């Protein structure tokens, strides 16, 4: 058996962060090879190195026995390596045919008729059907994925890297995709599949490489392992959670029933969610990025419409309430995207302090801004998590990201919140500040708030939350009683091994 790809001792650092630490990868020709691992394990970095989109610090790559050094993706394509990234490179305003040939037109003049003939024969070989002159905007997620694969074939790729190809697909479309991939490998092509989903590994792949924290922890034949071993390899042995904290559980502050939320690509990103958050507890949502947490969060804040189901806030139906009414009722948010959702960069800290609280005491009395009280409050908010700043009249853009995050987190805890929604609340914070922020949320919980925390970092959730639920492909899973903080159970739920 010959290797299509051999990567030997690949290392890559980004500043102080070691993204890849002497990683090996061996991919046999004519197989589907899985690369699995958590967010930040180094999967995408490794694939970008293979695709020439990233320069490695050290290590050797060889393709079909030839040692190569790709200076660009164009060179990788020349050598027959192609990649479909998570975010498709389809331009909606161009037709399917134009998208297909874009960047590989084969000369300064277009011969669209010839191109269409070749496109048609490639598609027929794969069993795909395309209306080549329709705008790509009309493609479904599955159609876009198929077009991406044809783009690789158009460029004569023999080694195809697919990064999370089923993330946007329905299970049926995902199954159909794997049928096409099997056709490709049967013809001698090689597929490298980056995935979080263990069923895909066991259903369709022959070998699997596990990355964790930038290191290769295992490379196995799929037939010689099992889901539970693989899940443990992916998640690793966790430190046992600190002694179970018994929260002072009160009434339900948030109840979500049968909630459906559409994603930004029109697919259903969150499906039939049911869960409760009670006063006094901090509930963590674990899961890999893109499992529907973002859409759930926006639905709870009220900035994204929901498809069905109910949200109730403090025992009151909030499904139809505006964002403001939810804030008024005591909901507070630490949004995911600080720059876009949480601050107005050119405004001072003082003015930013009122954002989301602007119509409430003490920031306003009636319809008039209460500037004196706002100054006092913004000083308090800055001090709570030790935001370093050059005066509250300075624009918030003059603060570092971490200091902005401290400010935003403190603002969400200001003025007796009833429900705290925190999306990666410790993003960009060092360990001490992370602990401060979680302890801050905890102290609000002790005073009767409930908190819902989304994080991609399972350790962080295990350390701070009272219990953890898991989102995977838009569905929410609650571990059985007694297993709410069992890292093995949660790890398996995260990758779909249970």
């Amino acid at each position, binding site marked *: 058996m010959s290797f299509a790809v051999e990567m030997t001792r690949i290392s890559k650092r980004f500043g102080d962060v070691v993204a890849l630490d002497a990683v090996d990868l061996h991919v046999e020709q004519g197989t589907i090879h899985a690369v699995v691992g958590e967010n930040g394990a180094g999967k995408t970095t490794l694939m970008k190195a293979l695709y020439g989109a990233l320069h490695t610090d050290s290590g050797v790559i060889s393709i079909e026995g030839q040692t190569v050094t790709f200076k660009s993706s164009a060179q990788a394509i020349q050598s027959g390596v192609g990649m479909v990234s998570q975010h498709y490179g389809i331009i909606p305003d161009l037709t399917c045919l134009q998208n297909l040939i874009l960047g590989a037109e084969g000369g300064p003049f277009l011969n669209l008729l010839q191109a269409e003939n070749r496109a048609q024969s490639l598609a027929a070989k794969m069993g795909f059907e395309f209306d080549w002159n329709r705008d790509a905007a009309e493609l479904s997620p599955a159609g876009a994925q198929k077009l991406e694969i044809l783009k690789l074939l158009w460029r004569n790729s023999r080694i195809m890297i697919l990064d999370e190809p089923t993330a946007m697909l329905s299970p049926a479309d995902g199954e159909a995709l794997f049928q096409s991939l099997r056709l490709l490998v049967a013809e001698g092509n090689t597929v490298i599949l980056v995935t979080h989903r263990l069923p895909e590994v066991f259903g369709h792949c022959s070998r699997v490489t596990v990355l964790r924290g930038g290191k290769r922890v295992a490379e196995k034949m799929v037939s010689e392992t099992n889901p539970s071993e693989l899940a443990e390899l992916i998640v690793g042995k966790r430190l046992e959670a600190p002694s179970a904290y018994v929260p002072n559980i009160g009434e339900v502050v948030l109840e979500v029933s049968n909630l459906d939320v559409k994603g930004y690509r029109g697919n259903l990103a969150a499906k039939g969610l049911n869960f409760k958050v009670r006063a006094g507890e901090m509930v963590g949502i674990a899961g890999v990025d893109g499992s529907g947490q973002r859409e759930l969060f926006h639905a709870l804040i009220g900035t994204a419409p929901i498809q069905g189901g109910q949200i109730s806030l403090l025992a009151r139906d909030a499904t139809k309430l505006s964002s403001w009414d939810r804030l008024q009722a005591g909901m507070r948010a630490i949004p995911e995207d600080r720059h876009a959702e949480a601050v107005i960069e050119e405004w001072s800290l003082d003015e930013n302090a009122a954002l989301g609280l602007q119509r409430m005491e003490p920031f306003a009395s009636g319809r008039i801004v209460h500037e004196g009280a706002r100054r006092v409050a913004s000083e308090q908010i800055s001090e709570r998590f030790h935001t370093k700043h050059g005066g509250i009249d300075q*624009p918030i853009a003059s603060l570092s990201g971490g200091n902005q995050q401290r400010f935003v987190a403190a603002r969400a805890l200001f003025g007796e919140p009833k429900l705290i929604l925190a999306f990666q609340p410790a993003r960009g914070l060092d360990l001490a500040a992370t602990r401060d922020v979680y302890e801050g949320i905890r102290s609000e919980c002790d005073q009767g708030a409930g908190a819902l925390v989304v994080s991609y970092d399972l350790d962080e959730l295990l350390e701070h939350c009272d219990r953890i639920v898991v989102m995977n492909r838009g569905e929410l899973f609650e571990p059985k009683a007694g297993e709410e903080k069992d890292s093995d159970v949660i790890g398996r739920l995260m990758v779909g091994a249970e």
Partner: protein
Amino acid sequence: MVSMSVRARYRFYQKIAEALFRGGQGKRIVSILLLSMAGLILLWVAIVATGAQPLGAVQALLKGSLGSPRAISDTLRETTPLLIAGIAVYLALRAGLFNIGVEGQFTVGACAAAVVALRFPGVVGLFLGCLSGILAGALWAYPAGWIRAYRGGHEVITTIMLNNVAAFLTAALVAGPIKDPTQEGTTTANIADGTKLSHLYNSGPWTINSGLLIGILGAIALGWWLRKTVSGYELRAVGANPTAAATAGIDAKRVMLGAMVVSGAIGGLAGAIQVLAFQHRFYAGISSGYGFDALGVALLAGPAAIGLLPGAFLFGLLAKGSTQLQFMNIPKGITGVVLGVLIIIAAAIRYRKAKAVES
């Protein structure tokens, strides 16, 4: 090598400025000085290119606009519509909208005010005239605001189109149904004396109309409203970051629509005041581009609405002074060059991105 030495010199002046002005202001002040210098050089070149003496041109400009009580009165008269229309543009600008449609809103406001003021003579007509100008302007801005907020169509495109509709529609009206049959040209009749907006001060060569006071009070009130009220805060939030505003519970679309409508209403009021205070009738082309110059006024105003006052005065001064230039065989358009350069300088200073300082 040259660029290096320029950069070194820039750093040198920056250091001096930093020593003179506390905090991070040094860099900003040096940029402003450099830009102003570049602007002056550009102007000098432009005037020389027309074959005139730069110094003489400036003298003529100032003499024509500020040289006598009469000249000053006329400058203030030109300032009034620029100021009120500037308020309209400024309000929309703070909500993140570029209302190029003030020209059209001004025109329909002027037309509506003339028609109503002719129908109802006396103080009632004055009051109803203003009101109808406000309503007409608001109505004219509504579609642009709605399309922007709820359909995502860009307000610059829609308001430009509505400007054309306003110009041709009012021209058609004044050529037909509302034309004064006793007159040769396409104009309405003159409104009655009792319907006119009275002068604030009128003695000898000095004439100052109440319209100017309305503009000044309006600018002050807008500044207060934006800073001190919750709705002003929310409007500015929408203008600066609509996503963050929505996350903060603000209905950004409603705010956009509201800002556009109120902006249009003020633009309509500017047109109404132009008729009721100065022109006393409506005719096609009543606005000599006030709505467009108001864009410059608003852009020059800076972060506080009070900045509209010097901006409008400057534009009024150039408009009045430019007539004097013609006597010296300098093309009137040179003032347009002056304004263009000023706006580019202002924009270059204003829109420099605040650089994040790691702390």
